[in-house]
């Protein structure tokens, strides 16, 4: 059972453009929603995370938007740069404290930012 659905599978954006990746979840017990960035040959690294008590969180050029009623969340990368080219995974975890101990990952989005 795929509990976190991610789209698109791949995304090509021009330098300076906005990259948008979407995720939807089914389990209403999910309480912690991180995004991971993975470069080829490396392990995933936490990029930004949100809890459902807020609808948006911004860190630099990266913003998470969260819609609890629709059970959807998205990652926006503003002013996309070639160095942002990587695979991005959304994830979700249950629990009141939303720990990372029970993360379920999406299938990933391969982002390519053209120079």
């Amino acid at each position, binding site marked *: 059972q795929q509990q976190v659905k991610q789209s698109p599978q791949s995304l090509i954006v021009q330098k300076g453009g906005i990259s948008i990746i979407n995720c939807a979840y089914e389990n209403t017990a999910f309480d912690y929603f991180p995004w991971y960035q993975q470069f080829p040959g490396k*392990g995933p*690294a936490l990029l930004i995370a949100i809890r459902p008590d807020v609808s948006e969180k911004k860190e630099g050029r990266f913003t998470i938007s969260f819609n609890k009623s629709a059970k959807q969340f998205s990652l926006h990368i503003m002013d996309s740069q070639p160095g942002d080219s990587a695979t991005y995974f959304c994830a979700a975890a249950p629990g009141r404290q939303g720990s*990372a101990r029970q993360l379920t990952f999406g299938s990933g989005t391969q982002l390519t930012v053209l120079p």
Partner: protein
Amino acid sequence: EAGVVQSPRYKIIEKKQPVAFWCNPISGHNTLYWYLQNLGQGPELLIRYENEEAVDDSQLPKDRFSAERLKGVDSTLKIQPAELGDSAVYLCASSFVTGELFFGEGSRLTVL
């Protein structure tokens, strides 16, 4: 601070052969995870340790996979015998209590 260290980074074996992967977590991290990452997919949890206890191994194929975490620090993941479908990247991660997950660079297995 050293990150999560995994070895070997790459392993090529014939089917039916055994293989083992080793993981050294970040110092002080009591929780250790082994994830399986197939090509073009997100990581899937195989097993989670809290100190030396395996608290979630529901997704570990126990007929051929085994894992151990001696003294609550390093961990080893073993596959015996390996099958063609086991070709994937095996990721180790660690965290402190409920904190952020830190991943290693992974061990890429190719089964011929």
